[in-house]
């Protein structure tokens, strides 16, 4: 009898996890769906890098992103601060599972360099944010498992585990808390290759644009291993500026500011 129950239990396991997987995917599909159709956006970013002693370093950059249907987005970032890298610009064509295409513009040499996009897990501008944390969210990039519902800071959330399917990720999994009402991330825990909790990202000061799209004004990334943290402050969000692929080519990279 016990054996039969045990057998049934094991037989049911995959069914339960199948349900959790499909629920996880459905929730993330809704996240993606609600955040589609914004066309393009520009914003100013300020990064505040804080080390263990509380010393702060600031970085400033301007960013524009072009939404690409059925593929990863195109983005162009121009650094303004620190001043020795002023004018350095970064062009990225992201893809769901294929390697991203990336170019760097070095203003002192007027040189455009095609660079490897294998550096997913490395730090962006010496911060606690990895390159992969900034890349555009595409459904194919992860396998999803719905874990539970949970109340976070008074918000009713879905808790979902994401397992990266793309190459060179620094994470085994991330756990995301998704607001049940607005379908936006509130918090993400990142687990490193050894499956220990590496970083926690929190999203604050959400604002709604065009009556639909929610964007965080403050994102904080706390590294639990080093104790360092990085705060991203986002200002001047502007949607639907009429940007086209032409503003995201190597010619535009060379004259970007």
């Amino acid at each position, binding site marked *: 009898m016990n054996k039969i129950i045990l057998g049934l239990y094991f037989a049911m396991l995959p069914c339960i996890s199948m349900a959790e997987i499909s629920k996880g995917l459905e929730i993330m599909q809704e996240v993606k769906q609600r955040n589609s159709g914004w066309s393009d956006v520009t914003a100013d970013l300020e990064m505040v890098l804080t080390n263990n002693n509380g010393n702060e370093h600031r970085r400033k950059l301007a960013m524009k992103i072009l939404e690409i249907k059925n593929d990863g987005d195109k983005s162009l970032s121009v650094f303004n601060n620190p001043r020795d890298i002023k004018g350095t610009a970064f062009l990225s064509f992201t893809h769901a599972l294929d390697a991203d295409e990336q170019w760097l513009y070095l203003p002192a040499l007027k040189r455009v360099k095609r*660079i490897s996009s294998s550096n997913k897990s*490395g730090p962006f501008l010496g911060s606690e944010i990895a390159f992969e944390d900034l890349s555009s969210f595409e459904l194919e990039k992860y396998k999803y498992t719905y874990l539970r519902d949970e109340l976070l800071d008074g918000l009713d959330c879905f808790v979902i585990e994401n397992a990266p399917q793309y190459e060179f990720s620094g994470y085994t999994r991330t756990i995301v808390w998704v607001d049940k009402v607005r379908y936006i991330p509130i918090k993400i825990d990142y687990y490193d290759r050894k499956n220990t909790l590496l970083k926690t990202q929190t999203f604050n000061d959400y604002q709604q644009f065009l009556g639909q799209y929610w964007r965080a004004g403050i994102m904080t990334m706390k590294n639990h291993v080093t104790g360092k943290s990085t705060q991203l402050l986002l200002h001047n969000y502007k949607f639907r500026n009429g940007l086209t692929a032409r503003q995201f080519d190597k010619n535009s990279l060379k004259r970007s*500011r």
Partner: protein
Amino acid sequence: MRVCRLKLCIFHTLFLFLGFIYSSITNAWEISGYVGLESLAFIEKPLYKEQHQHYISGVIEAELYHEWDNGTQSFAFVPYFRGSQHDSQRTHFDVRELTWLKAADTWELRLGIRKVFWGVTESNHLVDVINQRDTVENSDGEDKLGQPMINFAFIQDWGTVDLFILPWFRERTFAGEEGRLRPEPAVSGDLSEYDKSGYQRQVAYAIRWAHSMGDWDMGLSHFYGTSRDPIFLLKGAESGAVNLIPYYQNINQTGLDIQATLDSLLLKWEATIRVSESETAFATTAGFEYTFFNIMSSGIDIGLLSEYLYDSRGSTAATLMQNDFFVGARLALNDIQDSQLLAGVMVDRFSGAQFYNIEASRRFFDSFKFEVEARFFNGAIQTAPAYFLRQDSHFRMELSYHF
């Protein structure tokens, strides 16, 4: 009374004008740049009595930038000045950029003085022929003089075609009598000779097609006009002295550059065919760069580079690189200070002569940058051009403030 009113009027106008300049500079004009202090220290005693062991210099480069018309038009002015102790030829002013730009959907037009970079390899820049090199600025050959040009870029799905008219030839800069890193006698830049005159000497033309397809970035270019690379003639003067004179030839040069980006591996290839009155020469640089990213989750990247350099002109070429191997390593800490190190060695395949190059840089206090470069020359044989540099191994340090 009338004079008084006129004065008042002038004063008023001046005041308004200054006000306008002030407001436009603070509102729409951007100023940035750097000032630096450099120490150039040679390890060995100089070969020639006019030369020195140590040189101090100061540098300033500023950029004044303005854009309007929703960013589709812009103006940039970049003056540059280095003042050097001892070597008067190294004290020089240059307009690196003075350009008006107009960008439209399918084209871009640039008028004025600019720098242009073509190519993909690291140890040598074969296809990069638009600008004259500023060789007194740094012996690494990465610095360039501003080149006046009309540049029209035609932008299509199948790539970008750039057309250039380059209406003024600029002569290369050379170290003076008191400078190091020079042959004996020092190059007499003021006695330069040409195989063409008039328009043919002054005006050059160039066309380049560049495109990206998936993992591949490629460019095909052609240049017609006076070569930026002179050959050198030894000529006796009436006084009995011997002069080393740059001789600039008219050339047709076709260049090809290709890079394949395969995950962490970059494959790079440049090749040129260059036809002058005296010869047809083939040159190529080919190699790879492989990077180990974020080693042990430390954030540190280590890149390994290797390139082979060939020039059919052999040792008669006015280049130090005719049949050489380059190997190097790049270290990036990716820390807040952006600490970087590049170390490499170029080895001549036949003579075994070596040229070592180490460059390191680090930012501090957010606005300052410190750079150290070490260059060592070893084992050049007597007949090689590099023989002149046998006692010129040196350290270069520069501290700069960026605004």
